[in-house]
């Protein structure tokens, strides 16, 4: 057993990282791991950290490996942000920490899971640490793509690219690690288009599977303007539901914590001005986060929706590729029969346009309406 076992479908990247563990000459002080959402960036970073701290180069069974993988190792620091951005204060703390020698292991490993969320000032604070490497400190930065990371950071780290893992590898992982039935694992891995986290949620949550099917079935049902308006309203409603369900409790807890940190009484009705302004800043960030989360949910639905049009296109072309939505073969066939390949491409364009618009702050409902109007099937 090895720490690399759960890093699936990344042979090339794993080879590079293992070589660095084995051969000091191939090691460097800062790594940038990039890969699409769900490709396993943070899993790869932790495996690398374990391999560096394990006396056997990542055996997966010793105390060092275990404590790295569960995040409790003294020489491992993982910075994972729930917020929209990593603030300069946090970056400064990490830069300070980097100056210290490891306490028990061979390396001090600092993982930044969302390096794309470093604010410019936070990145500046890290820059010196990255420019003047400390003997036994290594930085592991993760981000969706190189372009998402501030250029000064980018240019000071070695880049390792992860790819979207194959469906079979994701299914195998779900079965082995999470004990999910092979058939369900295969379905979920395919439906989630190899996004490991989403696949696990689909496999475990009947509600998530139902919501996904509802979204995909919309495609074959939009005929009139009224259908389009209703489909758009449904899509937007799903996002609002998930958004409010997920955030309320966390928001309240964060506020209490902030007040405690500031030494204010969380029970007090009115706070002094300097504390009020900090609370207002937090609330603004929470609101932004909720909006972003809602948009992410819509975007994910649109990625799902896109997949059924792609399936229809593949079916029309008669190519022997496995469908993403094999479980909705009837719906795929309906679309393939009702629309020409040109119309299918136009529909996919409309979905892409809606994603762009929502990203640019167009109200999701309006963007979805315009999209759904383009998705009407010919009468």
């Amino acid at each position: 057993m090895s720490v690399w076992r759960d890093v699936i479908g990344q042979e090339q990247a794993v080879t590079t990282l293992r070589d660095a563990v084995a051969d000091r000459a191939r090691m460097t002080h800062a790594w940038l791991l990039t890969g699409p959402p769900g490709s396993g960036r943070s899993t790869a970073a932790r495996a690398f950290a374990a391999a560096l701290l394990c006396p056997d180069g990542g055996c997966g069974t010793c105390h060092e490996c275990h404590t790295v993988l569960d995040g409790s190792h003294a020489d491992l620091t993982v910075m994972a942000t729930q917020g929209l951005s990593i603030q300069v204060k946090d970056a400064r703390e990490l830069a300070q920490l980097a100056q210290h020698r490891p306490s028990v292991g061979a390396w001090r490993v600092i993982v930044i899971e969302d390096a794309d969320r470093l604010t410019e000032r936070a990145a500046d604070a890290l820059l010196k640490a990255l420019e003047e490497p400390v003997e036994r400190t290594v930085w592991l930065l993760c981000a969706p793509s190189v372009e998402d990371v501030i250029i000064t950071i980018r240019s000071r780290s070695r880049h390792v690219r992860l790819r979207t893992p194959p469906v079979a590898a994701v299914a195998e992982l779900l079965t082995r690690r999470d004990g999910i039935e092979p058939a369900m694992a295969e379905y979920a891995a395919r439906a989630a288009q190899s996004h490991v986290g989403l696949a696990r949620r689909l496999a475990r949550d009947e509600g998530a599977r139902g919501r996904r099917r509802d979204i995909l079935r919309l495609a074959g049902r939009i005929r009139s303007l009224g259908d389009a308006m209703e489909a758009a309203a449904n899509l937007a409603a799903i996002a609002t539901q998930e958004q409010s369900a997920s955030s309320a409790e966390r928001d309240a807890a964060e506020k209490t914590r902030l007040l405690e940190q500031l030494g204010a009484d969380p029970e007090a009705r009115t706070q002094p001005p300097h504390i009020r302004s900090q609370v207002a800043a937090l609330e603004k960030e929470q609101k932004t986060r909720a909006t972003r989360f809602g948009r992410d949910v819509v975007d994910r639905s649109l990625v799902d929706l896109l997949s059924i049009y792609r399936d229809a296109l593949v079916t029309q072309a008669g190519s022997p590729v496995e469908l993403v939505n094999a479980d909705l073969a009837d719906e795929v066939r309906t679309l393939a029969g009702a629309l020409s390949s040109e119309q299918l491409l136009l529909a996919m364009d409309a979905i892409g346009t809606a994603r762009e618009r929502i990203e640019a702050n167009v109200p999701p409902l309006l963007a979805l309406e315009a999209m759904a109007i383009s998705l009407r099937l010919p009468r």
Partner: protein
Amino acid sequence: MSVPSYVLISGPEQVIAERALASTLEAIREEEPDVEVVRLEGSLYEPGSLHVHTSPSLFGGRKAVVVRDLDEGNDALIEDLVAIVAQGSDAVLVVTHKSGTRGKKALDALKKAKVRIIEAPAIKSDRDKTAFVTNEFRSKGRKVAPEAVRALLEAVGKDLRELAQACQQLVDDTTGVIDAATVERYHGGKVEATGFRVADAAVAGEAAEALRLLRHALATGLDPVPIVAVLASQLRQVARVASAGRGRSADLAKQLGMAPWQVDRARAAARGWDGDRLGRAIQAVAAADFDVKGGGRDPVYAVERAVLEITRQRAGGAT
């Protein structure tokens, strides 16, 4: 109307809750002119204070204890409330609770003790706001024309408190039936109202008038973003009403969460449209929204083009 020992004002709408509290206290004073009123805040509650305030007064007069925002209350408050209700209170206890499950134990105890519940439900949809405004005038013995309600909602409908104040002002300052012209005189200059006029003209296909109003609105400093939002919402209403088919306006209004006057107006507007042209108009507005949010170089041009495209589609424009 005699006030029972326990009153619960339940719901998030502050304007309504405050009124319910005021009228409850007024009713108590009618029975008991010298009543002593004690006010406690849920989040500032100090253990034991309920026991102190609900115990009989030295001078024998009745007391009323108001506990605001039980939903923000600490555990001590919840415990004390449950205990007081269990042992019975000499004072009238008025509790407000906005929403959520915090304080549920105390709520359950109150409900068991036959509390009088006054609801203060959220007023969000245009339908609810229409009912609210109509009732504001009716309760003060005034008649209001449906067009006036509409104009009022468009001008100051975003905030319920502002809406309530506007109603009060109209009641105080005018006599006779309140019509659209009256509202126009007081609130016609509001930027929001201008946006609605642009949208009305555009949806009706009056290109020249729509453009004139739009230029005027932009010249007076109205931001293109809210204008595009109003265009979208007006077209959305027309599309939804047109797609809903026949049926009584009132039923349709309920089904779509719109006010009956909005249904009637959208129906009238829908007569010049069909699904395809309406669809293209909505798409033009979505494109304009992207442009005014920074996707295009010239936000003013983007909204103008959307207005023109709407009128062109209304006129039967081909693709």
